[in-house]
């Protein structure tokens, strides 16, 4: 049993009366588990006792657990409270989950990004549950005049076995609330987990399937107006003039004006990215009226020249970003990337003597991989509610970085931080797009100007053409084989617009004696940001497709080829900076080999394999493709995953399935191109996302049994499957695919 120091401060004893009197019935839909039945409804307590910021217990034993982090579909609203409930030792069917308020003094890292919610929340969530359980045990010991060490708990009941006494949490909670918060608490042994590791359905499931107002776009408040913005039609352009004479007189229109999201002298945070700081705003009564008035605006735009942005990186270092002027084109991007790839890059890592290895090689394999810009395309477009008065700013909606954007809004409005109230709503997807909250600042400025509550709504076109894309990438790989087909040298040179996707210290670094990793980048005025598994979302597929060709050239089985390299990396690693655990990467490969019955492939099944490590988790895939009517169709994908302890298997499996489909879809179909600075795809009629008919027929997910602290799953399943997909396509069609989206190369998927 581990002991952990608590970091929950001594709080005022808080008790609040029941939400709306003692008799309020709460529908079972709030709860996880089974199908709804009216008789399962929970009765609300007469009194709540808050034992710490994460939880409160009612006098009837009902428990409310706060989910601290933004919910973007990664299911933390269920899995994070499960961790608290485990250490509290309560019956999950008596748990109500609520989205926590933004409070960085109580909660740790209220951010959805980097697949870190579970990993970085793990200790504090356990501590919150264990602290409350300890207080309940101490209260029982005090009440019964027995040693606290003799008090045990089970499913919301306190027991004193020697005397046979017992009490429910509801009966003991008022006494527990008077107990001093302990300095340190004991955590459960993993083997005693009753909730962690068991499947619990989405706590919002019933609300989702009945269409309840959960999302930011569903939020409304009395007197609320609708706002929309007009931004330049192309990157490299800014507003020149506005003629709103016609629009202004249209029905339902309240006001039309311009805003400056970030003034020129504003010091941006990393999440303040926008290419379009000067916007035209239309405010009116209803969405349709505002949309129509916006169409009637006569706007003139002009090109701008080079400029600099003062910014602070995620790691806190100050930087000045030079943004080039001009209207960019995808054809030029491709040329620039090919030119830069042909020149020496910045050497990021070198082991041994790669130049000599390539010189003496019997065989050299060289391949180039590319991928386009991608738009995040969350199904719920960007939006935010704001009500700004002289006293405070209330903001409600979907944001992955509330604790950062609170600072941006405060700085921009000139209000102290404590006057900014950001409330998190369930988010219709994130994928990194909602890390960048310019739309909160826009909404706040609009509300301040019109002195009314407003909801800023982006259309799909606004959303898709506003920027903050996944960068365009390019990677050159070279492998040197000796006469016996041993891999004696490995060279990667990767770059992108405007940043490189290289991870120089990931596999196969550490596994090859002579290794060289170089990178380069080219500036752009097209704004970019993190997109589900940043950089990995491209480089994994490129690397894993390349290794497949190297394995083939060596005459080796592609799984055994990787395992042999990983054996070297585990037992006799090259270099010291390797950023992955070779044994865990080998572990997922071995598991996927077993689960897919790799050795006994079927004659009409074309298989490809891949494995990758990112965001602290390990995933290996086997993709099976069948040819139907001469067209490839993904029949099945096997996913083997090592993310440490699996908190909620049903949700973890769902997330792996989703990441797999998402990876396949983007590799096959998606891409954003530019002509004269303007995105060529502005809605789903041209920007293609994977659909039901194109999804794998089956996905088989297996987890490596583990006692290691859990890591995340939002991102890790996305990157590797792209490699297995292209390797399977090669087996099916005899052709290697180097340029994403692969469909561009005229594969006609069934």
């Amino acid at each position, binding site marked *: 049993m581990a002991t952990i120091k608590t970091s929950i401060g001594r709080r005022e004893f808080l008790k609040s009366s029941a939400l709306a009197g003692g008799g309020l019935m709460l529908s079972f839909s709030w709860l996880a588990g089974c199908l709804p039945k009216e008789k399962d409804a929970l009765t609300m307590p007469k009194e709540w006792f808050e034992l710490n910021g994460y939880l409160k217990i009612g006098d009837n034993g009902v428990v409310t657990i706060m989910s601290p982090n933004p919910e973007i579909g990664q299911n933390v609203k269920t899995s994070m409270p499960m961790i608290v409930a485990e250490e509290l030792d309560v019956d999950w069917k008596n748990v109500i989950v609520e989205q926590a308020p933004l409070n960085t003094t109580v909660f740790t890292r209220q951010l959805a990004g980097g697949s870190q919610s579970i990993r970085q929340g793990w200790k504090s969530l356990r501590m919150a549950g264990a602290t409350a359980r300890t207080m309940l045990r101490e209260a029982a010991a005090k009440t019964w005049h027995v040693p606290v060490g003799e008090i045990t708990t089970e499913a919301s009941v306190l027991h004193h076995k020697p005397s046979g006494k017992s009490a429910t949490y509801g009966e003991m909670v008022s006494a527990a609330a008077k107990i001093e918060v302990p300095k340190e608490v004991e955590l459960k042994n993993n083997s005693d987990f009753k909730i962690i590791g068991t499947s619990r359905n*989405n706590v919002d499931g019933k609300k989702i*399937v*009945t*269409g309840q107002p*959960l999302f930011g*776009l569903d939020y409304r408040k009395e007197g609320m107006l609708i706002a929309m913005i007009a931004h330049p039609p192309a990157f490299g352009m800014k507003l020149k003039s506005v003629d709103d004479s016609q629009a202004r007189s249209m029905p339902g229109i309240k006001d039309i004006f311009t805003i400056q999201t970030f003034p020129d002298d504003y010091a941006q945070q990393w999440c303040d990215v926008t290419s379009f700081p000067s916007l035209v705003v239309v405010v009116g009564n209803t969405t*349709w009226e505002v949309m129509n008035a916006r169409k009637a605006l006569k706007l003139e735009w002009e090109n701008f020249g080079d400029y600099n942005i003062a910014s602070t990186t995620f790691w806190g270092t100050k930087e000045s970003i030079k943004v080039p002027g001009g209207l960019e084109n995808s054809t030029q991007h491709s040329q620039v990337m090919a030119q830069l790839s042909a020149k020496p890059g910045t050497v990021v890592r070198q082991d041994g003597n790669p130049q000599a290895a390539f010189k003496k090689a019997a065989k050299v394999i060289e391949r180039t991989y590319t991928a386009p810009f991608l738009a995040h395309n969350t*199904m719920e477009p960007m939006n935010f509610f704001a009500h700004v008065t002289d006293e405070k700013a209330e903001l409600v909606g979907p944001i992955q970085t509330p604790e950062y954007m609170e600072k941006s809004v405060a700085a921009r409005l000139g209000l102290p931080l404590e006057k900014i109230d950001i409330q998190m709503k369930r988010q219709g997807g994130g994928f990194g797009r909602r890390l960048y909250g310019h739309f909160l600042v826009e909404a706040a400025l609009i509300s301040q100007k019109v002195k009314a509550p407003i909801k800023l709504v982006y259309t*799909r076109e606004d959303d898709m053409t506003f920027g903050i894309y996944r960068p365009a990438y390019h990677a050159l790989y070279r492998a040197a084989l000796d006469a016996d087909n041993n891999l004696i040298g490995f060279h990667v040179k990767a770059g992108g617009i405007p940043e490189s996707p290289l991870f120089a210290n990931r596999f196969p670094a550490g596994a090859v004696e002579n290794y060289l990793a170089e990178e380069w980048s080219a500036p752009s005025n097209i704004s970019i940001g993190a997109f589900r598994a940043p950089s990995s979302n491209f480089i994994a597929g490129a690397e894993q497709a390349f290794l497949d060709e190297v394995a083939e050239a060596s005459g080796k089985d592609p799984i055994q080829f990787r395992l042999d390299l990983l054996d070297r990396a585990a037992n006799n690693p090259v270099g010291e900076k390797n950023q992955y655990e070779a044994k865990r990467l080998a572990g997922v490969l071995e598991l996927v080999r077993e689960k897919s019955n790799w050795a006994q492939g079927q004659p009409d099944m074309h298989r490809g394999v891949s494995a990758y490590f990112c965001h602290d988790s390990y995933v290996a895939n086997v993709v099976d493709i069948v040819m139907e009517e001469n067209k490839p169709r993904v029949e099945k994908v096997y996913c083997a995953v090592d993310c440490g302890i699996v908190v909620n298997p049903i949700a973890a499996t769902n997330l792996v399935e989703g990441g797999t489909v998402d990876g396949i879809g983007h590799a096959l179909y998606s891409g954003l191109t530019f002509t004269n600075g303007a995105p060529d795809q502005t*809605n789903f009629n041209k920007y293609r996302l994977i659909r039901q008919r194109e999804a794998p027929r089956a996905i088989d997910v297996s987890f490596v049994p583990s006692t290691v602290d859990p890591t995340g799953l939002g991102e890790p399943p996305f990157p590797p499957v792209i490699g297995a997909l292209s390797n399977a396509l090669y087996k099916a069609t005899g052709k290697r695919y180097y340029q994403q989206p692969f469909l561009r190369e005229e594969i006609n998927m069934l």
Partner: protein
Amino acid sequence: MATYTLTVNGKKQEVNVDAQTPVLWVLRDHLNLVGTKFGCGMAQCGACTIHLDGTATRSCSLPVSAVGEMEITTIEGLSDHGDHPVQKAWLEHDVPQCGYCQAGQIMSAAALLKENPNPTDEQIEAAMNGNICRCGTYVRIKAAVKTAAQLINE
């Protein structure tokens, strides 16, 4: 502006709007039925799917003036207690991730099963192909449609 009398979820509702206003925005802005979602505004993603006299229809591209006497059913009116077989199957399979597209998915599935209570895999794929799920829950959606078909046929 004109006045339209719509039958929404079995209830007559009057709205005074421009003739071209899409039913999606009538539902969301005027009738406060926000379960029907805005995704693309051009009938490409299916998030706004409703039933028009029982047929799955993209409400973002349906002008209010075209509705006439036809009955509108939204996700809020699919069942009285959230217990339509499709809703039950969705919960059983724990389909949603972010959940935003799921009302549209459910409305498409419910319309399919009303028409064809025993769809083949190919028929499910065809009927559900107009509904994009960016989270990629397609495998579960298909499984849930099959479970819903079983519940209906029980």
